[in-house]
């Protein structure tokens, strides 16, 4: 019984951490600019590839993950500058363009780097709780997810960038009139979102096989979490990640991995029927 409970909590924490990590970058870009970045999975892939490359050169894993995040963030800023910037106010065109970019990125990686990259092993070993053993690295991932949410909260609420960014979200032209360089804010936000995706890739790189199409394994979950959560990272993505993580862990324990995914999908289809603007739409109703 104790084992079953701990096992379920572990699954639940793991699933929630995964959902929060892979969705937060997407959610920031979406919440800020209304842009859905279909190349999100490829940012994750870029971060993972960079992390593994740096780690193989002998750098410690945390440093390698930071490199992966920075690399993805840099690509994000360049992409914003050369493509996304021209498409503001045309959300459907943006989603189509980012899909084109996603095709170029995944197939281009296949051409340049081949069908797979030799991966690195999962660090930190395992720990025994009750009669079952659990991977310590997974606990690190859970803590990191919480830390990233906390960090984003601090960034958006207690820094000058955060204030300017929130002003830009609320009334862009007013912020502009008050001297905020909104283009720069958008550019930076896109970079932060991309860097978060890169960090996610780096964090999960030791736990999975690296292939050019690995992004596709993340985006379904990322989309589902963002759709359920709505436009706000803190009152949307975070609770959505926890709730969906619970559903996924329960379904996975009951029927297996795929049932977890199908459960997520059915949950999200029902949620959008009831709450078209997601959880944050429900919570922020008084404010809008």
């Amino acid at each position, binding site marked *: 019984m104790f084992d079953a409970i701990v096992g379920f909590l572990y699954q639940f924490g793991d699933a929630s951490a995964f959902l929060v990590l892979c969705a937060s970058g997407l959610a920031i870009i979406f919440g800020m600019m209304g842009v859905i970045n279909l190349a999100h999975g490829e940012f994750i892939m870029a971060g993972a590839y960079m992390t593994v490359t740096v780690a193989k050169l002998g750098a410690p894993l945390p440093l390698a993950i930071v490199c992966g995040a920075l690399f993805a963030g840099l690509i994000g800023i360049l992409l914003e500058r050369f493509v996304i910037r021209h498409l503001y106010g045309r959300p*459907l065109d943006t989603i189509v363009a980012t899909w084109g*970019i*996603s*095709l*170029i990125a995944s197939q281009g990686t296949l*051409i340049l780097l081949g069908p797979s990259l030799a991966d690195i092993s999962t660090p930190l070993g395992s720990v025994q709780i009750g009669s079952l053993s659990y991977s310590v690295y997974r606990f690190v991932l859970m803590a990191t997810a919480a830390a990233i949410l906390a960090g984003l909260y601090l960034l958006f609420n207690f820094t000058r960038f955060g204030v300017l960014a929130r002003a830009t979200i609320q009334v862009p032209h007013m912020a502009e009139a008050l001297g905020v360089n909104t283009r720069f804010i958008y550019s930076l936000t896109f970079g932060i979102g991309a860097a978060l995706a890169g960090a996610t890739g780096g964090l999960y790189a030791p736990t999975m096989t690296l292939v050019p199409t690995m992004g596709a394994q993340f985006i379904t979950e990322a989309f589902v979490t963002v759709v359920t959560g709505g436009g706000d990272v803190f009152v949307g993505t975070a609770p959505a990640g926890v709730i969906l993580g619970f559903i996924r862990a329960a379904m996975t324990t009951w029927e297996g991995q795929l049932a977890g995914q199908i459960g997520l999908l059915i949950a999200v289809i029902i949620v959008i029927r009831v709450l078209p603007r997601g959880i944050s739409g429900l919570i922020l109703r008084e404010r809008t």
Partner: protein
Amino acid sequence: MGRRSFFLRLASRLEGPQTLGRGWRFWVGAAVVLALASAYPLVTDSYTVGNTVYFFNWVFMALGLCVIWGYGGALSFGQTAFFGIAGYAYGVITLNWGADYGLTLWATLAAVALSAIVAAVLGYFLFFGRISGVFLGIVTLAVTLVLERFMAQTAGPEWHIGAARLNGFNGMNGMPNLTVPWPGDNDPLVLAPDLPLYYFVLALLVIIYLALRILVNSSFGNVLVAIRENSERATMLGYDVRKYQLAAFVIGSSLAGLSGVLYTTWGQYITPSSMGITAAALPIVWVAVGGRSDLTATLLGTILLIGGFQALTVYGSQYALVVMGLLLVVTVLLAPEGLILALAYLPQRVFRRGARDPA
């Protein structure tokens, strides 16, 4: 009298505000193209004929997406889901009951109907939940990807429907060709991917193309375009936006299903990867690059792009896909209405500068 005027009314809708091409020049041109297409198999070899049918198979899905996205303004990324559902349904029905007595035609209808039903259920949740543009794309894509993953893990022998094994990642194979009852000696006529299937699919393409022209120029099509342009205004004018968009979604998804069945009968196989993210991106590329807001532009663009794609695949499909991705980005940035439409409007723009606002 009543009947005749009904057909005249239908015929008059073949051209109208929602379609490019009108007047006798256009129709003579169309007739010439059709005549050339009909004569083409006589001057080429059987492999090329089969290959051209393969091109035609996809056009139905593209036309369907054109209705949903170009005319209805609702961007669905999940058309390959309906393609796959219909393809698998055709396989399950024909592998269980065989191909005699024109059953394959009924199987085609049933498979298309199944994809229409799935589209109606999914569409109900989406449109009646008032899902806005971007979310619609994401949810349809998520559904497609999960369906692909589901089909890919059905490798074990426990995954079967009647006599039809689903076969996981390798997909189903061994489905029969379409057969039609035929008077005379060669009854039934087997529509192998050669002359018979070519003429069958070509005829189907002409019928669907003309029917869609009538549809988009009818009051239904006009309301659909009104919703695309300004859905709030359409609501205020008393139209139930949700019903129109749902109807367009079901029609477009049925056409994707038709493509799925034709593809399955053409190659006698269907795999989960025909629904996956790369496959799902291609219809978007065809429709966006050709020109999503016009049926003719979509038709031409799709055939040209599939031809180009296949020519590039000689070097490897990854190169072809990179080119498709580039085309998509360039189109969105430089000619958002589509390359073919941009070319079609070019003379107008040059001679009447400033008269027409592209936005």
